[in-house]
């Protein structure tokens, strides 16, 4: 089914996270021609649908145009190419770190992160410990205020894997993350498999005689190894990319200011640019991939709506009266205003497809050269000066 009866449509996908691959496939399934820029080295995926072009070594140097007609300036080697796209979907994923200052404890032979523990399980380097006698792993969640859902769930799965390798496992927690059906079932099964769950408010961790001692409320627990979940942080490319595309970033450094109307449909402050997955939310792998399909649905619906004229009011500049003071360009939250040369006049121009009709620019313009077309304001309230502007 051709997504758009009339116009061939392409979508630009940025990022190399699993979410990006999922987005590329879903967009291709909708019939879009996808230009995929991983922006970082990523192992090339096996089979890509035919209408997907991947640009592995490409660097994004700019984004021109507007919703429905973006043009990504991409540098490959020397040449700068312009890739057309009706919309942009960002799926950078996020980054992991070991929050040493929050835990106050460096990694070491006795302190592992869940990924490290799983890796050692896979390449059998824990055999020595596991084989001769009951090894006891202590997994600590919610310590130092670490609340990331993604890494807490990963730690739960790791604890279970260790238990299934016949190790004794005690899991310390303040508030267990169970707010989705699979997690509730997971913790119940882990209890059935013998993982000891121990709630705490304050604990003290000490390392003595080759072991880890945790002074928990109901007595001292001695273990061989301590497992502390990693923390998540915004993908390092978030800020530069946000600056390049004039996108807003929240106080926590992730894409999107936390705004009730924008957060879930994956919207950004610019029309036609979407964010999906862990680059704008805290989610484990499955929730991140589900987020992609719902954002693709929003994106597809938006591109369909571009065929009709914008419904709400949009700003329009009387370009001959514009004094090019850049106030509108600087105050527009949606990067919809630009000073450009059109029909021989260099002046501010508001792109209809990018304008949200909020009127901030119209109310700011020092020479009242911008009006919101389609805004019903009674005449006696009209802001224009009563007198004559002699030009």
């Amino acid at each position, binding site marked *: 089914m051709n997504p758009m009866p009339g116009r061939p449509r392409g979508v630009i996908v940025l990022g190399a996270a699993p979410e990006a691959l999922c987005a590329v496939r879903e967009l291709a399934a909708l019939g879009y021609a996808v230009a995929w820029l991983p922006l970082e080295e990523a192992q090339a995926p096996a089979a890509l649908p035919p209408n997907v072009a991947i640009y592995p070594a490409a660097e994004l140097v700019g984004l021109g145009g507007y919703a429905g007609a973006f043009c990504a300036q991409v540098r490959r080697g020397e040449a700068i190419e312009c890739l057309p796209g009706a919309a942009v979907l960002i799926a950078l994923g996020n980054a992991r770190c070991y929050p040493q200052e929050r835990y106050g404890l460096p990694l070491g032979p006795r302190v592992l992160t869940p990924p490290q523990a799983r890796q050692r399980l896979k390449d059998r380097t824990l055999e020595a410990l596991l084989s001769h006698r009951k090894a006891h792993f202590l997994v600590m969640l919610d310590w130092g205020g670490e609340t990331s859902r993604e890494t807490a769930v990963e730690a739960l799965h790791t604890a279970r894997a260790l238990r299934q390798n016949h190790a004794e496992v005690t899991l310390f927690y303040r508030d267990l993350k169970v707010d989705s059906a699979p997690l509730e079932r997971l913790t119940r099964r882990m209890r059935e498999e013998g993982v000891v769950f121990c709630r705490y408010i304050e604990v003290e961790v000490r390392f003595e005689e080759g072991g880890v001692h945790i002074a928990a409320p109901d007595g001292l627990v001695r273990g061989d190894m301590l497992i502390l979940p990693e923390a998540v942080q915004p993908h390092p490319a978030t800020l530069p990319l946000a600056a390049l595309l004039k996108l*807003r970033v929240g106080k926590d450094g992730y894409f999107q*200011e*936390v*705004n*009730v*109307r*924008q957060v879930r449909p994956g919207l950004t*402050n610019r029309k036609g640019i979407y964010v999906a997955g862990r680059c704008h939310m805290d989610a484990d792998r499955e929730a991140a991939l589900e987020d992609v399909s719902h954002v693709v649905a929003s994106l597809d619906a938006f591109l369909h709506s571009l065929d009709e004229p914008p419904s*709400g*009011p949009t700003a329009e500049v009387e370009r001959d009266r514009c004094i090019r003071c850049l106030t509108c360009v600087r*105050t527009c*939250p*949606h990067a919809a205003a630009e000073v450009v040369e059109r029909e021989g006049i260099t002046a501010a121009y508001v792109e209809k497809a990018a304008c*949200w*009709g*909020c*009127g*901030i620019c*119209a*109310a*700011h313009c020092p020479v009242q050269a911008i009006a*919101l077309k389609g*805004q*019903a*304001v*009674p005449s*006696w*309230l*009209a*802001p224009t000066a009563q007198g004559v502007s002699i030009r």
Partner: protein
Amino acid sequence: MSMAQRLLVLACSRSAGEALAALEATGQTLPPDVTWVNLPCGGSVDVLHILRALEAGAEKVWVLACYEGACESLEGNRWAEKRVQWVQALLQEIGLGPERVVFRAISPTMAADLKAWLEEE
């Protein structure tokens, strides 16, 4: 000047406008001496709108926009509040009561609160 004298409400249609619609759906109507102007967003409230309204004889002007973190344009509500504060400072300077211009944050589900505010006024 076709404007009720007592109160002019410059309202963001997405929040205040919806609250009014919900209020009117319950059969409640605006008092006759209140003029309600729905604007697409709080951001389009112009300082001049407010001054023109006062000039045209409005005793009080309300500017209603979304709460922080609920504005679809992210900053429409912030600009609305900033512009009201600016007009209040101006009124103070010229010896008129700044309380004649009021900014209030509202959300579409606060029809009851809107009703209370209108009655209080």
